[in-house]
C-alpha cells in the first residue's frame, strides 16, 4: 500500500515541495521524512482518505519544523522561507493537490546537464528510485552514481537552472530532450530491466497527462507500450525469440490494445514525428500478419524525419519482405554500419535467404554483439549455418530478422 503510493506520489510530492522550498535536497528530505512517518502511522491508524495530500502536507510541516530548529542565528532567512511557504499552502482537498512535476521533469532534463545525469535525476526525483537502485540499473558503482547526482544537483543550484516549464519557443527542443531521457530509461537498463521499463511507461503516462496536446508524448507512450507488450514472448528459457516465432498468446493484450488505440488517435491528429512513426510500425507488427508494404511506407516517413543509416537498415529488412532479400541486401551493403552488430546480423539473414553462405557475417555480428541473449541467438544461428553449409542442405531458415527502430532493433 505505502509502496504503491510511494511509487505513484513521490515525484509529485518532491515537485511541490521543491516549488515551496526552492531546493531539491530539502524537498527530497522532507518527502522521505513524510513517507517514513506514513510507514509508522498508517499500519496502526489506517491510511488517510487523501494519501497524496497527506504526504505533501506532512512533508511541508516537517520542512517547517526543520527550518525552525535550524533557524537560530539565521532568523531573517528562515522567516522569509516560512513566509514564502505560508503563501504557498497547498489545499488539502484531493483534487486540489498541486502538480509541479512538469517543472521538475524539465529541470532534471535540462540540456546543460550531462545525459547520464539527466537520467539519474529523473529516476531519483520523479521515480523515487534510490541511488543504489539507479547505480545497479546502469552498472555503475554506487559512489560514482551518488557523486553524479550530487554534482548535478550542485549545478542546478549554483548555476540556477530554472524550475519551470520552458517558454513556447524553446518547448519543442526541450521536450525532445525529455522524451529522449524517458526512452533511454526504457531501453538502457541492464539490471532489473522490467522495473525500468515500467518506470519509463509510468513517466510516459505522467507526461501524457500533463502535456495532452503533444502528439510525440503520446507517440512515445504508445511505442513503449507496444514494445513492452511483447516482453513475455521475447524470451524463452533466456533465449531471444524473433517476432515471427513468438507465442502471440503471451503478448500483453491490454498494452497492445492501448498502444494501438493511441497510434490511431495520433494518426487522426496528423502531426507525425519520429516516436509516433515508430509506434505506428510497432502497431503494424502487433496486428499479424504484418503488412510489410505499410511498414516500408512508415520507414520512408521515419527516414524523412530522422535520416540515419540505422533507420535505413530497418527499412531494408522490410524491403526484403516486399521486394526480396537480394534487393534488400544491395541496400544494406551500401550502408556504413560496419561497427554495428545488427548490420552484420541482418546481412547474414539476407545472405542466407539469397542462398549464400552467412557464416562470415554471423561471425562479424557475434564479434560486435554485447547483449548475452543476442549473443546466444547469434551463436545458435552460426552453428545452424555451419551445419547447413556442411550438409549442403537446400533448406532456408525461416529465421527473419525483423528489427525495430530505436533501441528495439533486435527483432523481438
Amino acid at each position, binding site marked *: 500500500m505505502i509502496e504503491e503510493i510511494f511509487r505513484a506520489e513521490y515525484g509529485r510530492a518532491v515537485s511541490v515541495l521543491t516549488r515551496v522550498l526552492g531546493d531539491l535536497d530539502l524537498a527530497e528530505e522532507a518527502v522521505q521524512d513524510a513517507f517514513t512517518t506514513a510507514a509508522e502511522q498508517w499500519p496502526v491508524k489506517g491510511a488517510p482518505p487523501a494519501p497524496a495530500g497527506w504526504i505533501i502536507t506532512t512533508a511541508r510541516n516537517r520542512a517547517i519544523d526543520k527550518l525552525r530548529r535550524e533557524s537560530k542565528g539565521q532568523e531573517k532567512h528562515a522567516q522569509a522561507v516560512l513566509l514564502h511557504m505560508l503563501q504557498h499552502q497547498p489545499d488539502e482537498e484531493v483534487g486540489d493537490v498541486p502538480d509541479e512535476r512538469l517543472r521538475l521533469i524539465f529541470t532534471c532534463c*535540462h540540456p*546543460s546537464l550531462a545525459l547520464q545525469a539527466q537520467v539519474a535525476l529523473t529516476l531519483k526525483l520523479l521515480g523515487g528510485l534510490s541511488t543504489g537502485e539507479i547505480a545497479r540499473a546502469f552498472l555503475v558503482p554506487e559512489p560514482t552514481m551518488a557523486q553524479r547526482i550530487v554534482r548535478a544537483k550542485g549545478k542546478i543550484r549554483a*548555476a540556477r*537552472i*530554472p524550475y519551470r516549464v520552458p517558454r513556447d519557443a524553446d518547448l519543442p527542443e526541450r521536450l525532445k530532450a525529455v522524451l529522449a531521457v524517458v526512452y533511454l530509461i526504457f531501453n538502457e537498463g541492464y539490471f532489473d530491466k522490467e522495473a525500468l521499463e515500467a518506470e519509463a511507461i509510468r513517466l510516459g503516462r505522467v507526461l501524457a497527462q500533463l502535456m495532452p496536446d503533444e502528439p510525440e508524448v503520446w507517440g512515445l507512450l504508445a511505442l513503449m507500450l507496444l514494445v513492452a507488450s511483447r516482453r513475455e514472448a521475447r524470451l524463452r528459457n533466456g533465449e531471444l525469440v524473433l517476432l515471427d516465432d513468438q507465442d502471440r498468446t503471451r503478448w500483453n493484450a491490454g498494452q497492445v490494445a492501448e498502444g494501438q488505440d493511441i497510434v490511431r488517435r495520433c494518426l487522426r491528429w496528423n502531426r507525425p514525428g519520429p516516436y509516433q512513426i515508430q509506434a505506428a510500425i510497432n502497431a503494424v507488427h502487433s496486428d499479424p500478419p504484418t503488412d510489410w508494404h505499410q511498414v516500408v511506407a512508415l520507414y520512408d516517413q521515419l527516414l524523412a524525419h530522422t535520416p540515419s543509416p540505422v533507420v535505413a537498415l530497418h527499412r531494408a529488412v522490410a524491403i526484403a519482405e516486399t521486394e526480396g532479400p537480394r534487393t534488400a541486401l544491395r541496400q544494406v551493403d551500401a550502408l556504413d554500419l560496419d561497427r554495428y552488430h545488427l548490420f552484420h546480423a541482418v546481412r547474414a539473414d539476407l545472405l542466407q535467404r539469397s542462398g549464400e553462405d552467412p557464416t562470415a557475417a554471423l561471425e562479424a555480428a557475434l564479434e560486435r554483439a554485447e547483449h548475452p541473449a543476442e549473443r546466444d541467438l547469434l551463436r545458435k544461428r552460426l552453428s545452424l549455418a555451419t551445419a547447413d553449409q556442411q550438409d549442403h542442405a537446400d533448406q532456408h531458415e525461416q529465421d527473419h530478422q525483423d528489427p525495430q527502430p530505436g533501441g528495439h532493433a533486435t527483432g523481438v
Partner: protein
Amino acid sequence: MTQKYLLSIYQPDGEAPPPEVLDPIMANLTALNEEMQAKGAWVFAVGLHPPSTATVLKAKDDDVLMTDGPFTEGKEHIGGFTVIQAEDLDEALEWGRRLATVLSPLPVEVRPIVF
C-alpha cells in the same frame, strides 16, 4: 535578485585572423555588448593579449615563484570574457549562445559566479 555569470571565450593560440576577417566580428561583438548594456545584462567585458604575454606567480614557503607563460598547457586559452547578470541559467545561456554565434567557431563557457 540576479545571478552573475562568466562567459569565457576560448581561442586557439597563434596569430589573430587578418583584419578582413576580424573587423566584421569585432563590429558584431560591439553591437552585442551594446545590446547587453541596453538590456541591463552587461557587467563588463575584456579582451586579452595572447597567452605568451602572461606571467604565473605561485607562493611557495616564504617565496613567490615566477614563471613565464600561461598557467595551463594546451593550444587554446581564454582570449577574453564577458561578465553578465541574468535571472537564471536559461537567460545566461541565451546570451552565451548569441556570443558564440558572433565569435563562431570559438567556444564560449558559461559559468556562474559566486561573488
